[in-house]
């Protein structure tokens, strides 16, 4: 088997691992939400992945286009003669189709992220329509700039000299999804009963810690595939170097989980299971941008900072600026994603840091206003939030007509108006 064929098979294998990351994030979102909305959380995850994948197939990949480095995949120059058309027209079988498949899976993962922040109050139909905007406009536009647009060509500017680097998608996938989560949390407002009239937040604990922790393990498998496939397809990383990617990804996750455990132990006197799981996820998220360029020691440091930052940010969002994010999606994906992008520059060179900051300014200064405006406009047309009756009853019964746990009376007072 030649080098090119080996790269192809290995890259396909890594891409096929990515759905595990979606399953992991979906399980975490379901577990951290309320028991009366558990089936809705997982159903919404499936529906948004489907919406995102289909709309990306129709027009998203047309807008995004191929990565700049695709031409050197596997050491052999690939012939990409035409810009992809609508419905993937003009996309040749082989490596170009592999890039499209990676895009479909990546946008699927990106689309699940906002559900965590909108948990327990976001209508199913609205979540699918919001995802259409994400997968058709926001995600492909930033991905285009990062992979083959002005961010990818920053090296041509003598004052910068380096291109924006984001192999696994800390910015492209995670921060875009996380900033959309922030926009949705702002637009939807907090869950009913989350804040008292004085603004004091009430604790609404996770309904299934096992889902959350098992989801973290699943996500680990998926992230190794996501980072390795992203590095091979967008940065022409050689197959043998993908081992470094897997190593960096794993070490960053481990450091993130332990950092969250240590900080929660110091801060709350005992380790917190859901924050440790989220710290693990923050480590994974932060590892993506520099997965092929950081050394293992700096990947550990990146993950450790992400895990520690997560605990502080979750509390700051909830108490400090009153953002109700039930699953910590903003802290895990937006904050850790942005940190991952910056960390590549911090641990490599000053010129690279400047290129990474240009990427972060694009995410904050363009992607956040864009996703907020798109969702604000859609919310004028479609009802985003369920009624207070629906929220009290739980989204399972209200929207799906069936509970996730029909054999158990989990909370006797669920149907009693409070």
């Amino acid at each position, binding site marked *: 088997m030649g080098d090119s064929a080996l790269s192809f098979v290995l890259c396909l294998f890594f891409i096929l691992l990515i759905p595990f990351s979606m399953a992991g994030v979906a399980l975490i979102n379901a577990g951290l939400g309320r028991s009366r909305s558990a089936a809705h959380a997982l159903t919404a995850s499936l529906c948004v992945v489907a919406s995102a994948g289909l709309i990306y197939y129709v027009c998203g990949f047309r807008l995004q286009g191929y990565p700049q480095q695709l031409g050197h995949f596997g050491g052999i120059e690939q012939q990409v003669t035409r810009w992809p058309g609508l419905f993937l027209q003009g996309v040749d079988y082989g490596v170009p189709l592999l890039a499209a498949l990676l895009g479909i899976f990546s946008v699927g993962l990106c689309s699940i992220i906002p559900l965590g922040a909108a948990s327990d109050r976001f209508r199913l139909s609205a979540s699918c329509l919001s995802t259409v905007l994400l997968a058709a406009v926001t995600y492909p536009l930033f991905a285009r700039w990062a992979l083959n647009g002005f961010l990818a060509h920053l090296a041509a500017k003598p*004052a910068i000299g380096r291109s924006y680097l984001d192999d696994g998608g800390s910015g492209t996938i995670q921060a875009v999804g996380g900033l959309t989560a922030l926009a949705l949390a702002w637009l939807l407002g907090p869950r009913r*009963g*989350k804040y*008292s009239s004085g603004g004091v937040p009430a604790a609404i604990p996770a309904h299934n810690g096992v889902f959350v922790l098992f989801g973290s393990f699943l996500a680990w498998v998926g992230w190794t595939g996501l980072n390795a496939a992203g590095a091979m397809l967008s940065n022409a990383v050689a197959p043998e170097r993908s081992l470094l990617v897997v190593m960096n990804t794993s070490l960053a996750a481990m450091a993130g989980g332990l950092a969250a455990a240590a900080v929660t132990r110091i801060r709350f006197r005992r380790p917190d299971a859901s924050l440790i799981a989220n710290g693990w996820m923050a480590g994974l998220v932060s590892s993506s941008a520099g997965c092929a360029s950081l050394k293992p020691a700096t990947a550990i440091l990146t993950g450790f900072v992400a895990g520690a930052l997560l605990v502080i940010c979750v509390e700051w969002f909830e108490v400090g600026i009153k953002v109700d994010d039930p699953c910590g999606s903003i802290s895990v994906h937006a904050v850790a994603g942005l940190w991952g992008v910056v960390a590549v520059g911090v641990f490599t060179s000053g010129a690279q840091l*400047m290129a990474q900051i240009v990427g972060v300014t*694009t995410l904050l*200064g363009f992607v956040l*206003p864009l996703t907020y405006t798109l969702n604000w406009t859609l919310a004028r047309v479609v009802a985003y939030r369920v009624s207070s009756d629906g929220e009290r009853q739980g989204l399972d019964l209200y929207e799906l007509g069936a509970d996730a746990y029909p054999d158990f009376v989990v909370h006797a007072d669920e149907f009693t108006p409070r």
Partner: protein
Amino acid sequence: MKLGGFLLLLSGWGIVLAALELLHGGAVAPFILAGFATEWVGLAVVARTHSGRSEDNH
């Protein structure tokens, strides 16, 4: 107020893009950092406007 915050976010990005297109050499980095700082101010304004709304929605 909210609109002002989002305009600050966009302005910060505009400063960065303008610096990349119009300036050369050592002048670029300070303007990129200035754009970045402008965005943080915008983010703080937007967060503050939404924070007040959360307290009303209990």
